[in-house]
């Protein structure tokens, strides 16, 4: 729902990472990691990118998104497991408090610049 804000932040981070001494830099690819439970809809994000990167070094950038699975840790028996459903009850001890150890990421890992 706040993809525009997220897109703006991502663009800011990418712009800051472009070497200052490059003239006419072009960012071809942005590599992102987005957790399955992060509230980011991929096509909305792509759409927002198209709008805000016009006439910038990121125009027509391709977003390569690695989707990060939801991983849960049980605080009482220390089991760790991945899940696709929102049922986070520990399959072993059934009662432990759980914490999410991945699945909420919204991050840039790297970007690829056009060679000249």
């Amino acid at each position, binding site marked *: 729902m706040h993809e525009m804000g997220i897109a703006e932040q991502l663009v800011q981070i990418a712009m800051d990472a472009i070497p200052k001494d490059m003239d006419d830099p072009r960012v071809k690819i942005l590599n992102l990691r987005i957790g399955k439970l992060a509230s980011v809809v991929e096509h909305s994000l792509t759409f927002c990118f198209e709008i805000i990167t016009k006439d910038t070094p990121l125009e027509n950038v391709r977003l390569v998104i690695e989707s990060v699975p939801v991983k849960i840790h049980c605080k009482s028996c220390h089991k760790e497991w991945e899940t696709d459903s929102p*049922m986070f009850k520990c399959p072993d001890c059934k009662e432990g408090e759980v914490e999410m150890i991945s699945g909420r990421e919204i*991050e840039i890992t790297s970007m690829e610049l056009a060679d000249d």
Partner: protein
Amino acid sequence: MEINIRKRVLEKNETDADQNRAFFKEKNVFVLNMMSSPGSGKTETLCKTLVHLMPDIRVGVIVGDVCTTNDADRLSVTRAKVTQINTDQFGGDCHLAAHLIDASARQLGCDDLDLLIVENIGNLVCPAEFDIGEDARAVVLSVTEGEDKPLKYPLMFQVADIAILNKVDLLPYLEFDAALAVDNMKKVHPGMPVFEISAKTEQGFGPWLEWLRQRVKEKTAR
């Protein structure tokens, strides 16, 4: 040419939230972040709750109603210190970011407060992502919504410390299965306390008030 970056988008918000936490600690104020879909009864629950807590507990409220002053007006009647949030770009159409809470908390002044409640923007998605430096998060679900809400918005119910099932006065007129709703909350968040209340009749208020008083006491007793 490949450039490594490795940066999280919410890094800035997390830093801001940590600063808020330090500020609230220094001021000895317990901070509760209240979240729900629009209309679940956050404001009504607060209006009734504050009457019981004050004046023993000194309460301030930050309201995230971005379009009107209705909620702030309703809450002002309780004589709690109330301030309305002013939003900006990356701050808040659908959630309240930490830096906005910082500005409002300072404007409100926390020296004479024991409890600061933030009524977040009505939305079960975005507020779950944004740490504001709170001590506890409460999610409100009302019986006029679906029993499956916790499964549809698992992040919210997972990050919440407690849940409130509100409007139970309406249960006789609805087909809502309260036990199923609570069960779904506990599937997403095993062990989470759930308070079944009616903000209208104050049914079930005892355990909820007790929980809140206890948490405020733990934080402020120092």
